[in-house]
Structure formats: structure tokens, C-alpha cells
């Protein structure tokens, strides 16, 4: 027993070495740093959600929040709801989307399919870039200057939608452009080779292939502009009642309701402020889920 030879032991030095101590240390350090960065980024996010939910949950679970306006209620009076502001936000967003989406898609199609490399296309891309960087207050004041000061039209929800169009348009152009660019040229050539004209190739082959990404981009752009505050502050007055007329009269929206209720020092005001905040976050979340759903439904399938 004492002279057993270890047959499993290698006769020569192994070709492969273990992970060195230095690499292990660097790996651990990097892991710790990245986990910390993630936690630091998570803190404000969780904090915001916690604050909004804890302060606003009482308001939105009330039976009247989703179905009534604040018409006829005094500032300190509890009750009523945000229906007027929800309608306003959705209406202004919808009108904005109806205007910005077709224009944005057509600009992107021009840039990718027709204008590639031309001077007009380069100028358009440049201006879209500038428009992307325009602050919402500037867009709002521009619409005020043109729509109200020059044309002499009244402040209205439609003016708000026009300002939102200025903010949404560059985002739609950019995202649609990216989606059209990743459609392989092979597909365009295959379509041309079948004797299909260019415009029909774009409508029936290129856009359906890119549709999934295009819809996501459009819905996300819309979700973003619906929370804009500067246009509603400047271009329309707050109304505590329900107004469906986008061309005339005062109209509430969730950001506007929040700024108005902020100057209401009573408990009722605080409830409405936080309730409107959580409602706005919920609506935008629903839009983002909708975008994810649409993208999944319209994506090209292989099964």
C-alpha cells in the first residue's frame, strides 16, 4: 500500500494555467464598481416612484378620479377627479401625433430612399438635428409668436398640439430613418428585379419590414411629448371643467393641472398634484407597453 503510484498525475506540466490572481482581482473590482453604479442609478428612480406612489395613490383610487372633473369644487374641497386633464392630455397628444407622424415618416422616406447624398437631404438632416435640440419653451414661444401674435388666433389646445409637433417631429424622423436604413438593400433589389416600381417597393416591402421599429419610435416619441409642460403653460389656459373643443376655450392637461394645483396650499391641492403626477406616469407607461406590444405583433416572423 505504501508504494502506490499516482497514475492520475500528469507526467509533464499542464498546457493550461488557472486564472491569475491579478485577473481575479481586477474582475472583482470591475464587478463591484459596476454593481455600485447600477445601484446609484437605481436610487433616484426608486425614490421618485416611491414618493409619487405613496403621495398620490390615495387620490387615484378614489371612485371619482377617473370619471369626474374639478368643475364647481372649491380649492380646499376634497373630491372630484382628473378626467378633464386626462382628456386634455390625450387629445393634445393625439392631434400632435396625427400631424407629426405622417410628416415625420415622409421626411424619413425622402432622406433614406430618395435624397441620399443630395444637398437638400443634408440640409434637412441638419435642420432635424437642430430641431431635436430646441427646448420645449422655445417651441412654445415660437408657436405663440406665429399663431397668436401674427395670425391673431386665440390660445387653444390646438396651439399646444402645434408646439408638441415641433418637439415630436425630429424624434419621429430620426427613429424612422434609422429603421428604414437597416432594411437590407437585398430586399429592395429583389423587389425591383420582379418589375415592381420604386414607390410600391417602399410601400409594400420596405415599410412593412421596418414597421415594428417605426411604431415603437412613434409611440415612444408621443409618450415623451405628452409630459411637456412649457407648451401648455404658454399656449392654453387651465380649465377645471371638461372641454373637447381643441380650437377654442380653456383646456386642462395633466402637467398643467399639476402646476395649477401646486399653488393650492390645501391638502386637497396636494392630493390632486400627486394624483395627476401618478396618472401621467401611468399613461406614459401604458403607451410604452403598447409600443412594446405593437413592435412584437408587427415584427417579421420566421415561424
Amino acid at each position: 500500500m505504501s508504494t502506490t503510484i499516482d497514475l492520475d498525475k500528469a507526467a509533464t506540466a499542464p498546457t493550461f494555467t488557472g486564472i491569475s490572481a491579478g485577473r481575479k482581482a481586477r474582475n472583482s473590482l470591475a464587478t463591484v464598481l459596476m454593481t455600485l453604479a447600477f445601484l446609484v442609478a437605481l436610487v433616484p428612480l426608486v425614490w421618485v416612484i416611491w414618493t409619487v406612489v405613496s403621495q398620490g395613490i390615495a387620490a387615484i383610487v378614489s371612485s371619482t378620479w377617473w370619471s369626474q372633473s374639478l368643475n364647481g369644487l372649491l380649492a380646499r374641497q376634497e373630491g372630484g377627479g382628473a378626467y378633464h386633464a386626462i382628456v386634455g392630455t390625450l387629445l393634445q397628444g393625439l392631434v400632435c401625433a396625427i400631424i407629426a407622424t405622417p410628416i415625420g415618416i415622409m421626411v424619413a422616406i425622402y432622406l433614406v430612399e430618395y435624397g441620399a447624398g443630395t444637398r437638400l437631404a443634408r440640409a434637412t438632416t441638419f435642420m432635424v438635428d437642430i430641431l431635436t435640440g430646441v427646448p420645449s419653451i422655445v417651441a412654445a414661444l415660437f408657436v405663440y409668436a406665429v399663431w397668436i401674435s401674427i395670425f391673431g388666433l386665440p390660445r387653444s389646445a390646438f396651439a399646444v398640439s402645434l408646439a408638441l409637433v415641433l418637439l415630436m417631429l425630429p424624434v419621429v424622423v430620426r427613429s424612422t430613418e434609422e429603421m428604414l436604413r437597416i432594411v437590407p438593400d437585398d430586399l429592395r433589389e429583389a423587389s425591383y428585379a420582379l418589375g415592381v416600381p420604386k414607390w410600391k417597393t417602399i410601400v409594400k416591402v420596405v415599410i412593412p419590414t421596418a414597421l415594428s421599429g417605426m411604431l415603437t419610435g412613434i409611440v415612444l416619441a408621443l409618450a415623451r411629448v405628452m409630459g411637456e409642460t412649457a407648451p401648455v403653460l404658454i399656449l392654453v389656459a387651465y380649465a377645471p371643467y371638461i372641454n373637447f373643443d381643441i380650437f377654442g376655450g380653456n383646456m386642462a392637461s395633466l402637467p398643467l393641472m399639476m402646476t395649477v394645483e401646486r399653488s393650492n396650499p390645501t391638502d386637497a391641492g396636494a392630493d390632486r398634484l400627486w394624483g395627476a403626477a401618478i396618472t401621467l406616469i401611468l399613461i406614459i407607461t401604458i403607451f410604452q407597453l403598447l409600443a412594446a406590444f405593437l413592435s412584437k405583433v408587427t415584427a417579421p416572423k420566421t415561424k
Partner: protein
Amino acid sequence: MAKRLDLKDVDIYYGKFHAVDSVSLAVPPRSVTAFIGPSGCGKSTVLRTLNRMHEVIPGARVDGEILLDGENIYGPSVDPVSVRRTIGMVFQRPNPFPTMSIRDNVVAGLKLQGRKGKKELDEVAERALRGANLWNEVKDRLAKPGGGLSGGQQQRLCIARAIAVQPDVLLMDEPCSALDPISTLAIEDLISELKADYTIVIVTHNMQQAARVSDQTAFFNLRATGEPGRLVEIDDTPKMFSNPTEQATEDYISGRFG
């Protein structure tokens, strides 16, 4: 329906770059003509001028005449879209439309040209898929996406799509270079069958393939890097592979190139 193609002194330019120099050749109807030659010698470029597909690239232009049964496809009043309806093309990589089902891929040409009813399209789809030897493999899943097929099946789907519009000429740009040997064999068998109805021009890097499928072979080459590509020689395939006239052809075919 198969027609003959005649190229007369065809020069091809990309902007200022002279890509192909003075090609003249004749492609008889109901035959297979193979284009062989080293990479960059202009054979694919010549193929793409045969249905005006090269015009997709900005700055591309052609001098000379390309005649389809005597009619110049570059005539001043000729619509390139109508040329491509008459002269179909199959590409190197299978490219079925990802948003369409197998059936819709096959009838895409007719559907997008906006003709014919559903029943007629179903008949066309079956005829084209049978013609491409794919019908038995896909008849139970015509409504499934074309992207779910194997590479070789996708390429036969693309051939079915090209013959569904009933072209006079079928151009194939290295149709087997992305496929395994079994799928390649299936496509080569198909080419031999399609020859009965179509005029076929095929570009290939595989010389055995050229020898197997073609009736006549054209050898393209460059004089030197930066010079335009040119047609060295065109002749019946057996003669090209056994006893070519030009020394350059023999060197290339026997592997003594360069």
C-alpha cells in the same frame, strides 16, 4: 416565351470609372450561358446591366446596345420597370421578403404589380413552386413565413418568385454560393429543367458548376488591376473546358491563373 439576348459593344461605367470594356456576345433562347472569371472582372456587372439593375447604383451608365429579340432594352422610351418584368433575376444570397408568407413571396411580383385575383394567384403560386421543385416541401405550410425555410429552400423560393412573373430571361448571380452541396445540386437540376422554357444566364465562381449546367461559357478577365474588365472568350462549354482558343482561358480553367 424564351427570347434571345444580344450584347453589342457594351461599355459599363460607374461615374468616371470604366468597369467593363466593349463586351459583345449572343445568348440564344432556351439555353444556359455561364459567366466565369476572377472576382472583380465585371461578370456580375455585365449580368446586372442585362435587366438594368445596375441603375440602382447612382452614377452607373451603359454605352452600346443590349437587344432582347432585336429590341434595345436601353431604348429612350423603354421603362426600366418593364425591362425587369421581362428579364428576372435571382441573387447570390436568398432574400425572401421577411414580412410575407411563402405563398405571398411567390406571388409578390404579380401582387405588387397589382394584377389578378386570389384564385388565380393561388394557381400561379402552385405552378411556380412546382416549377422550382419546392411544392412538395412547402405545400402544407404556404401561410408560414418564408424566412423559416432552410437556405436552399429559400433560394428555390426566390427562383419560384422570379419565374412566377413569367419572364423571358432569367439571370442568376452566383445562386449557389451560399448553399451546401445538396442544395446546390437541387438548384442545378432545376436550372437544367428551366432551360426548356427560359433563357438563362448564370454567373458562377464554381467551374464544375459552369461545366455541368451551361451550354456556352463566357470567360471574363482584367488585363491588370485598375483596368476595365473584358470578355476574353465565349464558346460552347465542352470546347471551353477542353480546348479553349485563348491561353488565358486555359490557364484560368486549369488553375494556373495569375
